């Protein structure tokens, strides 16, 4: 059986993503990650790093002395980074932290001076701000003040509340200014020491290979061992223990269903295994080894799986592809 051939459209999409993310490959860190899950999200406008009116310094270092709008770069006096998103897209915490402030009372698309937001305090002293969110009543706010959040956790859904022209997420990094005695906007795109650019979403993966690309033939009641490898194309380190960024291979379609092929090494009926290695850095390849037990009934089956960061987020199977193992349960003794 041939190894899953990807469609041309998918290849184009992946090549596009690879091109966009190529700069990030060498820069990928386990620090801040992009505040959403979809790596196809692009940049509308970055921070104006020059405070002077009608003079803009964009994230590439280019200066514009015109006060005009430069798509993909900057507009005058802009204090954050704008990411186009359809309304109610998932917004993720860029780093572990504690929610210190939020607003969810404005309508999802209510225009005005103020809008909905979540602000998170991080242990490094910085804060991140997620703005123009959907209303709390519309499911826009998924956290409360005082909540501890982990990187990659869904905290909100995007909207267009406040001073907003077109649905997008305004993501802002704030650094304490001792002179102003206040948090001031910084440029997350320029601070490459600790923030990747173009950056990576928290959790993403690409299929690499597996122990048997064809059909696994399992004698009824017997157990065989199967492994599959995925490349960590996200921005966070995969781990096999703890509660943050622990990555496992779980059943899919439907998500987290109890598998009839569960072997004795599965931690749960719906999770085949955690990551084999202690950790896998971004760009690394992680292997997932698990047993498959021949179900009681002879026949042909498929079992689907997806990666999940424990307690946080399912990987996007639309990009990962539907990973499944064809299984034939036989009566033979071979």
């Amino acid at each position: 059986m041939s190894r899953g051939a990807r469609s041309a459209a998918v290849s184009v999409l992946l090549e596009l993503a690879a091109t966009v993310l190529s700069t990030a490959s060498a820069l990928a860190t386990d620090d801040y990650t992009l505040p959403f899950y979809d790596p196809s999200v692009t940049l509308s406008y970055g921070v104006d790093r020059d405070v002077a009116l009608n003079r803009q310094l964009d994230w590439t270092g280019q200066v514009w002395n015109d006060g005009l709008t430069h798509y993909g770069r900057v507009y005058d006096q802009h204090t954050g980074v704008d990411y186009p998103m359809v309304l109610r897209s998932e917004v993720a915490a860029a780093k572990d932290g504690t929610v210190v402030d939020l607003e969810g009372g404005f309508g999802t698309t209510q225009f005005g001076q103020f809008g909905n937001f979540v602000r998170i305090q991080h242990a490094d002293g910085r804060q991140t701000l997620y703005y123009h969110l959907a209303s709390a009543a519309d499911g826009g706010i998924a956290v409360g003040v005082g909540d501890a959040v982990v990187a990659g956790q869904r905290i909100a859904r995007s909207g267009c509340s406040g001073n907003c022209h077109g649905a997008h997420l305004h993501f802002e990094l704030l650094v304490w200014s001792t002179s102003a005695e206040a948090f001031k906007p910084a440029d997350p795109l320029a601070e490459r020491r600790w923030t990747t650019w173009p950056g990576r979403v928290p959790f993403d993966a690409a299929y690499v290979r597996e122990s048997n690309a064809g059909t696994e033939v399992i004698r009824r009641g017997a157990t065989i061992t199967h492994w599959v490898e995925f490349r960590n194309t996200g921005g966070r380190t995969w781990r096999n223990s703890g509660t943050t960024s622990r990555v496992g291979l779980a059943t899919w379609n439907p998500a987290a269903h109890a598998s009839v092929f569960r072997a004795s090494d599965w931690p749960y009926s719906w999770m085949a295994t955690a990551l084999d290695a202690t950790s896998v850095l971004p760009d690394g390849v992680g292997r997932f080894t698990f047993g498959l037990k021949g179900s009681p009934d002879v026949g042909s089956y498929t079992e689907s799986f997806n990666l999940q960061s424990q307690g946080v987020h399912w990987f996007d199977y639309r990009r990962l592809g539907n990973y499944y193992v064809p299984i034939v349960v036989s009566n033979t003794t071979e």
Partner: protein
Amino acid sequence: MQRSPIWSVVLLSVLVVGCSSPEVSSPSGAASQATSASSPPAEASASVVERQTLPSGFPILSGAVAMVMPADDPGLIGLWESDQVGSAAYDFYAEALPVAGYPIVGVYPGGDVALIRFRAPSGDIWQVVAHGAVDGGTTIEVRLDRP
């Protein structure tokens, strides 16, 4: 086994089309949104600056009022002001441009401003730019593409 994620094709199509938000429409109703285009008046002067003109039938946000275009901005093709605020203009053009035969090549929503790049009949890239007007409405520009 890795099966091709067919939803990616759908996703790609959505990305190409752009991100229109059908739930946001103008108060006056979508059916009456598009009106026949008439080029905004050029500044009454002896200027010899030549600017491109809007094609007939170019979509215009309902209620938008054409403004005089400054002669020192030859890249400007159309200029209007609207009482509608926020995403109204952006959402209107994100939906109306493809329907009217102007393929969108990029969408750039933002806080103070939104910009949509689209292909004109000539093959050139034009922009529609919507930003808050001084008096509280929205200023809408159609102009030649610029970085």
